[in-house]
C-alpha cells in the first residue's frame, strides 16, 4: 500500500513542478492526437453526412461496415501499417516509420470510422425533414443545409470528441509505429507502459491522471452541449 501512496505523492509532485519531460510527453500526445482527430473530422464528417442522408443502394451496408470498423483493434492497424511503412514494405521509400506522422496516420485510421459512423447514424436519425421544411419555407439550398448542420451540431461535436477520446488513449498504434522514442514519439500511453515495466510508478501515475482528466473534460463538454440542446 505504501508504494502506491508514494507513487501518487510523487505523481502530484511531478505535475505541480511542471517537469519538462512530463510536459513534453503530454504535448506530444496532444499534438499527435489533435492532428489525427482534425484529419478524421475533416474527412469523416462529410463522409458521415453523405452516408447518413444519402438515398442509395447499400447505404445500410456501408453503415454496418463503419460500425464494425469503429472497433478496429489498434494492434492490427499498427501491424498492417508497419508492414507497409517498413523500408522493405511497399511504402518504405517515404521513410516515415517511427515518426509522429506515422502515428498520426494510424490514429486517423482509428478515428475516421468513429467520426463517420456517429455522424452518419445521427444525421440519419434527424433525417431530411429539416432541409425539406426549410426549402418549403423559401430558404435557399445553402441556407437550408446550414440549418441542418445547426440541427446536427451536437452529433458532430460528440462524434469528433469520441474519435479524440479513442486515439488519445490508445497505445498499440503509438507503440508500433512511433517506437516510443524519447522526446520525439513518446506519448502518454507509451510512456505509462514503459514506466510500469521499469517499476517507476510516479511518472506513470502522473500521466494517468492527465489522461483521466482529459477524458473527464471531454465528457463535461459533451454533457454541456447536450444540456444546452434540450
Amino acid at each position, binding site marked *: 500500500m505504501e508504494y502506491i501512496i508514494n507513487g501518487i505523492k510523487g505523481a502530484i509532485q511531478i505535475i505541480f513542478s511542471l517537469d519538462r519531460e512530463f510536459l513534453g510527453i503530454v504535448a506530444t500526445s496532444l499534438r499527435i492526437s489533435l*492532428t489525427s482527430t482534425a484529419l478524421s473530422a475533416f474527412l469523416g464528417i462529410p463522409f458521415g453526412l453523405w452516408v447518413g442522408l444519402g438515398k442509395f443502394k447499400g447505404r445500410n451496408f456501408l453503415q454496418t461496415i463503419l460500425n464494425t470498423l469503429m472497433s478496429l483493434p489498434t494492434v492490427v492497424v499498427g501491424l498492417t501499417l508497419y508492414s507497409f511503412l517498413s*523500408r522493405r514494405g511497399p511504402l518504405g521509400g517515404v521513410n516515415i*516509420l*517511427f515518426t*509522429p506522422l506515422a502515428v498520426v496516420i494510424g490514429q486517423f485510421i482509428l478515428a475516421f470510422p468513429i467520426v463517420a459512423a456517429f455522424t452518419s447514424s445521427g444525421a440519419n436519425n434527424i433525417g431530411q425533414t429539416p432541409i425539406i421544411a426549410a426549402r418549403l419555407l423559401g430558404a435557399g439550398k445553402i441556407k437550408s443545409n446550414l440549418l441542418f448542420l445547426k440541427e446536427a451540431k451536437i452529433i458532430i461535436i460528440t462524434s469528433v470528441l469520441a474519435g479524440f477520446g479513442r486515439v488519445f488513449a490508445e497505445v498499440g498504434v503509438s507503440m508500433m509505429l512511433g517506437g516510443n522514442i524519447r522526446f*520525439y514519439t513518446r506519448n502518454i500511453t507509451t510512456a505509462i507502459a514503459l514506466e510500469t515495466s521499469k517499476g517507476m510508478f510516479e511518472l506513470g501515475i502522473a500521466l494517468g491522471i492527465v489522461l483521466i482528466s482529459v477524458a473527464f473534460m471531454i465528457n463535461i463538454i459533451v454533457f454541456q452541449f447536450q444540456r444546452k440542446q434540450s
Partner: protein
Amino acid sequence: MKHLRLLILSIFLSITVFANFALAQETLRLATTTSTYETGLLDYIFPQFEKKHDVKIHIISVGTGKAMKLGENGDVDVILVHARAAEDKFVTDGFGVNRRDVMYNDFVILGPQEDPAKITGLNDAKKALKLIYNNKQMFISRGDDSGTHKKERYLWSKTGITPGPSQYLETGQGMSATLRVADEKNAYVMLDRATYLFNKDKIRIKKLVEGDKDLFNPYGIIPVSPYKYKHAKYELAMALTAWITSPKCQEMIKNYKKGGHQLYHPNAK
C-alpha cells in the same frame, strides 16, 4: 466575443499541433535491447556524441531479435545488441558491416528467497535450470527472441529439457517487465546483471546463481550495411561506433554505476 475565443483557441491548437513537427535536425536511428536503455546507460553516453555531431539519436528499445529485424529491414541505421552467434549471422548475411565489441556483463539467475529448487550458490547455470525443472518450480522467460531469451533457450536446450507451460511462462516483454512478473509470481528468472542491479531495491526475489562462463554476456554494435540499404546513414553510424569504442566513452561506460555497482565492463579492442 464567442468567435474571438474560438479563434484564439484554434490558433493556440494549431501552434501546438504543428510546431516541432518539422524540426529538421539530423537524426540517427539506433535499435537496441531493453536492458541497455532501461538501465539509463545510453542517456548517459550519447549526449556528448549528439552535441558534437549535431545529431539526435532516436533510440528504439526492443529485444535483440526485434532490433536485428529492424536492421535487416533497413528501418534503423545501427544496432547495439547482445547475441554473438546471431550478430555474426547478421554480418555474414550482408545486413551489417564492421561489427565491434562494446562491453560485457553477465547473466544471473534470480529466484524466491526460500529457494525451493535449492540452487543457491551454484555456479552451474544448466544444473540450476535442471533443479528448477525437477523441483517443479516456475521459470519466467522473456519469450521475445531477445538476446537474453536466446541465451536462456540455448541453456535449456543444453539440459535436454523442454519445460511445459505449467512451469515455463513466456511474458513476451522487456527485461524489466519480465523481472517484475517473476517477482510478482515469486518465480525463477534469468537476466543480465545490469538490469538486476538497477532493479535490486525494488524486488523481493534474490540473486541465487552467478559465475558460470556460460553466462557471459557480450554486447556489440553493428552499423547497417550501406551496400544493402543506400539510405542507411552509414557515416554517422560509423561515427557512433567510433565514439562508443573510443577510450573516452569506454571510460564512461566503466564509470557508469548504480548503487555503487559497475553495470557494464567495456571491452572494445
